[in-house]
């Protein structure tokens, strides 16, 4: 009855499906989150933009739109880490470890599945941002989507690595909370790099922050005039995002393949 089939790629697809199945159950949540995002951008974004005066020709509203979207994709991606923690708590990880799938495939599948899921979760909000920004060159949309996806893969990989390394609900909550606070605040999500440059340690933290890389990369793509306000050239930002994705995917795969076994969750 059991079928001998070509595995590998199929296994990877099936593991990715696991996260997509979970996303399917969150349709209502996605709709609510999208509605809230639209309200946030229209009401809070407009209000704050009227208050901020920085430089001649600097439109804070457009700057804010791509920043707030970056913080959103980061938060949604990091939430996958919490979901993996819940799965460990409920024994789902044990179930996955017993499946006839290579450990490396399992880890890579969860990173890819989590990032695709996060990407799809935020897609309606990205479309809304694009409608507001009205990009001059529509070709930059697929480029930006690739960058957003890679960023999400890196963050999901990081979250999975942390959760599976610490194996503790409390430690996960604390670590993720600290990382979340630091990465979002020490970045150019809401403040342009020249402003941050006035507070030196803050500025250097922002420079090495992947959240900065994505928000600045998206701004350079869709708002070319903002290139003077970014800290690094877009090629460097993109390289950093690719590095993040590859690095943390590898680390998550390594942890699952070599170190992970069931039990020991605190």
């Amino acid at each position: 009855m059991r079928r001998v089939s070509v595995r590998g790629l199929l296994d990877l697809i099936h593991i990715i499906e696991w996260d997509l199945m979970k996303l399917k159950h969150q349709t209502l949540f996605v709709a609510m989150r999208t509605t809230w995002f639209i309200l946030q951008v229209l009401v809070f974004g407009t209000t704050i933009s009227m208050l901020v005066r920085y430089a001649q020709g600097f439109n804070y509203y457009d700057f804010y739109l791509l920043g707030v979207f970056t913080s959103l994709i980061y938060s949604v991606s990091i939430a996958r880490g919490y979901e993996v923690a819940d799965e460990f708590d409920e024994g789902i990880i044990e179930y996955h470890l017993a499946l006839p799938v290579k450990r490396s495939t399992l880890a890579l599948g969860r990173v890819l599945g989590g990032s695709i899921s996060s990407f799809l979760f935020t897609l309606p909000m990205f479309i809304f941002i694009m409608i507001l920004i009205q990009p001059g060159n529509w070709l930059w949309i697929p480029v930006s989507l690739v960058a957003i996806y890679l960023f999400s893969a890196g963050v999901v990989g990081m979250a999975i690595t942390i959760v599976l390394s610490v194996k503790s609900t409390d430690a996960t909550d604390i670590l993720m909370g600290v990382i979340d606070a630091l990465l979002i605040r020490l970045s150019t999500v809401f403040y342009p790099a020249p402003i941050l440059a006035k507070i030196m340690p803050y500025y250097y933290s922002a420079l090495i922050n992947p959240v900065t890389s994505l928000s600045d990369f998206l701004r350079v793509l869709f708002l070319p005039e903002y290139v003077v306000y970014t800290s690094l050239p877009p090629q460097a930002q993109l390289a950093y995002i690719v590095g993040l994705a590859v690095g943390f995917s590898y680390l998550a795969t390594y942890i699952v393949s070599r170190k992970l076994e069931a039990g020991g969750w605190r």
Partner: protein
Amino acid sequence: MFLFLAGVRLMEDRVVAVKVVNFTKRFGNFTAVNGLNLEIYDREIFGFLGPNGSGKTTTLLTIATVYKPTSGDIFVYGHSVTREDYEVRKLVGLAFQDPKALWVDKVQELLEWHARVVGFSRGEAKKVVREVLETLDLWEHRNKYFYQLSGGTRKKLELAKVLIQRPRLAILDEPTAQVDVPTKHKLWNIIKELRDQGSTVIIATNDMFEAEKVCERVGIIYKGRLVAVDTVSGLKDRIPKGDVIEIVIEGDGRKDKAIESLMDLGRVEYQGNTLRIYVEKGEEKALLAADILRSAGIKVKSIMVKEPTLDDVFMYFTGARLVEES
């Protein structure tokens, strides 16, 4: 004697499905399993008998590569769990003691995903899942969320995963716990069919009746050590004197002295207010035992002579009662 020897020879000729070699598993300072050695044969139903916390689940999960051995190794059809874990997983199907699903999982959706992961195409998965759900009387629950299922239905869902897979080695961790009696009988038949269709089955249980009813051989595991392995009848035969006198007493009196006196009759095990004496000619010795207890000022509540059950076997080998410890 000839038949007995022929039986042993037959056993020795059988293909070894699982070979456990000096397997030890520690969690921090706690040793869950200590130096376990065991062979489980191809196409047999093997029962792991022991109270909760005795090391059954740890051993089963290590066979399924979910845990890694601290030392020693386990071979599944010749593949090492430490060096060829993926090869092992391709041969093993596991039904966990606590059913594994998220609250928001739907029965059919989860099982179809499971079927695809174990190698079925999308179309085949739908077909096999329907067959298994119907076999287990779960079809009407197919669109329910996991949180809507009763404990017994959840156990059936867990077993369904293994039935879909039809693995070479099926590991079932307490498959009928929380299940009503008629369903238990049905599940036991299904487990036997699984074996008849070519699977080796390992069952962890603390249900004596289940072990007697389903298992061909039984391993008694206690405090992380394997204390006996044999067929159910073989284990019973290993109780040396054939009969068991079971005495329930009331009040303590000179209990220790009385027990000392009873030892002249045979080996005595006691727990709480129940004494068990392993003797020959039980009927004769029972009266004598009652007299000894009475003269020690101990009231006898009930006295019974019986042939040994698997429960007696467990008591004999471990000095503990399985059900109470569970």
